[in-house]
């Protein structure tokens, strides 16, 4: 089981999912129309490390974060 959290303005409650890679997460989140634009412009972190590969194997207890476009300062 992994936890998926939606940071900043996405405003969606965390999910707990039984998945083993980000391809599966992508398939699940694409079914939620409210997330369509966020999926296009959000970066992804696993356990607080930004990743760029959907095939990374997920482990039980991993935390996945979606980070929408940023603007500090």
């Amino acid at each position, binding site marked *: 089981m992994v936890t998926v959290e939606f940071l900043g303005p996405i405003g969606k409650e965390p999910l707990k999912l039984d998945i083993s890679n980000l391809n599966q997460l992508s398939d699940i989140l694409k079914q939620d129309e409210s997330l369509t634009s966020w999926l296009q412009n*959000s970066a992804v972190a696993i356990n607080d490390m930004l990743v760029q590969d959907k095939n990374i194997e997920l482990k039980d207890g991993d935390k996945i974060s979606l980070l*929408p476009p940023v603007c500090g300062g």
Partner: protein
Amino acid sequence: MTELQLFDGSLPVEDITNGWYKEFKNSNYGAIITFVGVVRDENEIDGLSFDIYEPILNSWFDAWQEKAKAKGAIVLMAHSKGDVLNHTSSYISAVCSPQRRVGLELIDEFVEDFKASAPIWKYDIIDGKREYALKRSTAINGAGLLS
């Protein structure tokens, strides 16, 4: 940690910058360069509001500190969480470096990368409500992985 400080609401600018000066003036840095960001009154906003994801902000900042140390310099930063009204400060960054040229170049790169990468989300405060500043925001490198 003195080098990275987060505050609820507007920054106490004089306390922060004076504190950094006192802490580092005897460390033999020849240049201490400070950038203070002030919220402007524009587009009928009352101020700005910020969310921060601290775990990734900390690792982003630590990577910058390593980069600065390789040049004999250090970076410093303060940022607000929550609401910051017009004409007050939400962001300060600084570089302490042996000579001015390294410092001036470093602060430019540091502030630009902060804008593009630091996990902070900005909202306009209009009529007491927060509106996400999507058009002024930048997608983090690698965005769209799940689309």
